């Protein structure tokens, strides 16, 4: 089991002139609408509990107004909570003094923003080294580090351009490089790819996954797009009206939605494109002897259903054997289960 990098405990955020007096009411079941109507306060977050494992990519999902952007801003305390704890590496961020908080932001976290939030009067290089400048890192070293990351996100040759001269996708690469140049443990991404065209967006998702494979940061990724969440997330937390609706592994959420809200979300997902063989395979004990004795077709554990479904249709095997990349058997998949999963 991986240790937790971030532990969010009983976090509440109520917006308004006198929020702490209303926590009691919210605890007793006063909802978002009622709170606004009767008490003129906005319920931002309602008793959020979430553990984020070290080196994992945690997606927080929800529609606009669900509190997801508010939640991510509590991790580096851009927003002060009404009550609760935000424990990062065993330390409560909410108890840090102003000075300690600045140190925490300089060293532990870096953030990527939806609308990029680049400094328009600074060049790409100056933007990427902004965090290092704030940390007062020696200029030569800051430039060296920044150029490394500019190279990694594929912007070499653009370092002396201004952000306005770049396309949206390129601007967000600058945003990503700026965050990574700081070498933070935690990468906070607030709808980082939502403002980009679908194709560029896919590129950026691939860049992020590729970098993550190597860097193993703890990434908190906010999105309103389930496909993006399923593609990127090791685990997904779904927020609705400031409350946690469901939280768990991507596959569990897809196959076993707990609430109506989540059900509606996952309804339209193309499962064959998201689910991998390893996600849905069964143990040999669940398979009858006759089937095991018969002919099987081998599929790779990391392949999504879409990759082998055509072969299944042509060869019509009764049983699929799921193997790892060395050909070792990991589990089985009956054609009944496969069709059940695809039928929903």
């Amino acid at each position, binding site marked *: 089991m991986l240790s937790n990098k971030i532990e969010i405990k009983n976090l509440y955020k109520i917006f308004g002139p006198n929020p702490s007096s209303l926590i009691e009411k919210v605890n007793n079941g006063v909802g978002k609408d009622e709170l606004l109507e009767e008490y003129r306060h906005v319920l931002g977050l309602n008793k959020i509990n979430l553990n984020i494992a070290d080196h994992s990519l945690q997606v927080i999902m929800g529609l606009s107004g669900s509190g997801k952007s508010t939640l991510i801003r509590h991790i580096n305390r851009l927003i002060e909570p009404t009550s609760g704890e935000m424990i990062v590496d065993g330390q409560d961020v909410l108890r840090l003094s102003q000075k300690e908080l600045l140190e925490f932001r300089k060293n532990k976290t870096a953030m990527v923003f939806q609308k990029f939030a*680049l400094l328009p009067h600074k060049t790409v290089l100056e933007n990427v080294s902004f965090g290092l400048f704030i940390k007062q890192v020696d200029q030569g070293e800051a430039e060296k580090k920044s150029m490394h990351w500019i190279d990694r996100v594929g912007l070499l040759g653009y370092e002396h351009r201004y952000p306005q001269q770049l396309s949206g996708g390129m601007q967000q690469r600058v945003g990503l490089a700026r965050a990574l140049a700081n070498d933070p443990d935690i990468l906070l991404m607030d709808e980082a790819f939502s403002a980009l065209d679908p194709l560029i967006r896919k590129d950026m998702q691939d860049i992020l996954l590729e970098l993550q494979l190597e860097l193993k940061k703890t990434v908190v990724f906010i999105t309103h797009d389930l496909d993006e969440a399923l593609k990127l997330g090791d685990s997904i937390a779904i927020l609705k009206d400031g409350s946690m609706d469901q939280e768990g592994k991507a596959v569990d959420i897809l196959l076993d939605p707990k609430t109506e809200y989540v059900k509606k979300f996952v309804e339209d997902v193309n499962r064959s494109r998201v689910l991998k063989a390893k996600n849905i395979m069964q143990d040999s004990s669940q398979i009858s002897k006759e089937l095991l004795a018969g002919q099987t077709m081998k599929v790779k554990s990391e392949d999504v259903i879409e990759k082998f479904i055509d072969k299944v249709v042509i060869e019509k095997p009764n049983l699929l054997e799921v193997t790892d990349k060395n050909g070792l058997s990991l589990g089985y998949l009956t054609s009944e289960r496969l069709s059940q999963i695809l039928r929903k």
Partner: protein
Amino acid sequence: MAKETNFLTEFPTLPVELIRAFKKTTDASYKAFSREYGDYIESFFNPLLKFLVFWEKLLVSTPWPVIIGIVCAFAFYGTRSYKIVIGIIISFFFVGYMGMWGDMMESMGFIIVATIMAIAFGIPLGIWMAKSNRAQAIITPILDFMQTLPPFVYLIPVVMLLGIGKIPGLISVIVYAIPPMIRLTNLGIREVDHEILEAADSFGATPWQKLTQVQFPLALPTIFAGVNQTIMMALAMVIIASMIGVKGLGQEVLRAITNQYFTLGMLNGLAIVILAIVFDRISQAYGKRIQKHRSGDAI
């Protein structure tokens, strides 16, 4: 019956004696104050006077070709336009040829000093106003008052305190010209995109780092609009300030008004317009240059 019509047609006033007493005591106490502290205040402003005299002397004693050369260099660096440079040369030659060069240099020195002072006080005040809502709540009505009060009216206390001369003239010009500087600095800083500030915060920037690296540079185009406005207002005030002893083009205009010298008035008025256009074009050009990153063109 007759009494009631009087009540409606004539506004009820305080007894005349009371009003007279009120005016008398106020004036007397202000006079007493200026008699008591006038010298002290005057010596307080002495460095300012020296600064002003330095500029006026510098401009008046510098050979005219050098002045034209410097102004043209400034204009060309800002605008990259030969048309404007040629325009400046022609109009400056016109002013000089008509015998107004010395007066124009004195006015120019005066405007430069007034603008420098307005910037030196206006920008910090504007920053303070942007950082604190309470400061904004206090300063805004004062600025409203300063901008609506007829400029002649606030000549009076300045003159009573400091008499007639360069310094009272300069102070009233600064007071008249500083509001747009303060307002536009405040506006420029408040207008900075919230998300960009959040980004600076997320990297752990201190308030000072945020101000110098993000807020001030992003507010610069708006602040420059304030500088431009301030220069224009200072120029407009030059004539009024000449009534309390400021020399230069304004004084000639004043002489033309009192003596009905139509041509003298027109010529000096024209010289002020030329000065205004030159200052305006140059300061606007610099305002635009610092926005170069905002354009999408490759640089």
